[in-house]
């Protein structure tokens, strides 16, 4: 197993925080400020309209119960993924893959890592620079964005098997076309055509 020391900024960043990605170290202050604002608004509303209290509490509580059942498990899974699957390994495999198996690999490798999408941009850029196929890079980015594995589990839990499976299937098909289209539309990096 190749395990280089990870130096990329934002590597520790897990699944989408509400933050501006530009900055190296994000202060949680903004989130807490926003929370205070929402909380204040809620208190004011509930004081003014006592008849709405009951359904509000009930909805918040059941939402909380649903989230708490899966949150620790998903967080642990994402932690395990990011420790065991190094970004370098992903680049290594995707860098020189071609043909249909390359496209499939791009989907697969995009689904494994964790972290918000902007963490994947530098990876995608270096893939293009290394001569990876444009379609593969687009697919990799899209899979990273919307069909990551832990994310799909949460989707399954909350929106059901039919919804999850159908969205997954449609995404794979359409993203494949999108990747091939963008590849036709222009040269990015020095990508060469593969068979």
């Amino acid at each position, binding site marked *: 197993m190749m395990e280089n020391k990870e130096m990329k900024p934002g590597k520790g960043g897990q699944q989408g925080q509400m933050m501006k990605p*530009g900055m190296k170290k994000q202060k949680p202050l903004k989130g807490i400020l926003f929370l205070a604002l929402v909380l204040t608004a809620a208190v004011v509303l509930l004081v003014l309209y006592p008849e709405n209290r009951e359904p509000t509490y009930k909805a918040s509580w059941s939402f909380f119960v649903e989230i708490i059942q899966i949150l620790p498990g998903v967080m*642990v899974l994402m932690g395990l993924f990011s420790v065991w699957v190094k970004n370098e390994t992903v680049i290594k495999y995707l860098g020189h893959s071609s043909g249909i198996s390359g496209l499939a690999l791009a989907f697969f490798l995009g689904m494994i890592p964790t972290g918000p999408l902007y963490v994947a941009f530098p990876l995608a850029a270096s893939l293009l620079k290394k001569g990876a196929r444009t379609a593969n890079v687009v697919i990799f980015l*899209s899979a990273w964005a*919307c069909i990551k594995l832990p994310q799909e589990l949460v989707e399954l839990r*909350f929106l059901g098997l039919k919804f999850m499976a*159908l969205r997954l299937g*449609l995404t794979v098909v359409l993203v494949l076309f999108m990747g091939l289209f963008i590849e036709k539309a222009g040269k990015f990096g020095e990508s060469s055509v593969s068979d």
Partner: protein
Amino acid sequence: MNITVIFINAAALLGLIISFSRNKEKSMKALKMALKSTFKMAPAILILLILVGLMMGFFKPETISRLLGEQSGIYGIVLASIAGSILMIPSLIAFPLTASIVDSGASIAVAAAFITTLTMIGFVTLPIEIKIMGRKFTYLRNGLSLVVAVVIALIMGVIL
């Protein structure tokens, strides 16, 4: 208890056991990362808890279904796509949020459009994407992702 809940937690537990049997240090690091990202996400989760409560407590299901339900047609999908492109909600809490909107009357198409745009299109991160990937690539990817999202939404609306 729901079977997916059991599956997720069983997978996490099994993963931990395997991980610890191979490398204790790495496993501790994974646990630390899990804890850290939970704390990072906590404000966002609490905000959504409050907002979902207020939404259910104050809006009648009829209002939600009028704005985002079947009869909202393409407007509902457009509205959801715009919201999904601009907002930055961790996908982990986007799913329960979407589920509760669907429960109170939003259509499947709207839900699919919202989730797909939310995850694939980053209005806020556009400048970073342009800087790293180039202008043309960024516009193509985000523009086409919007098309993909709407197509997915329409097809899912018809099938489900």
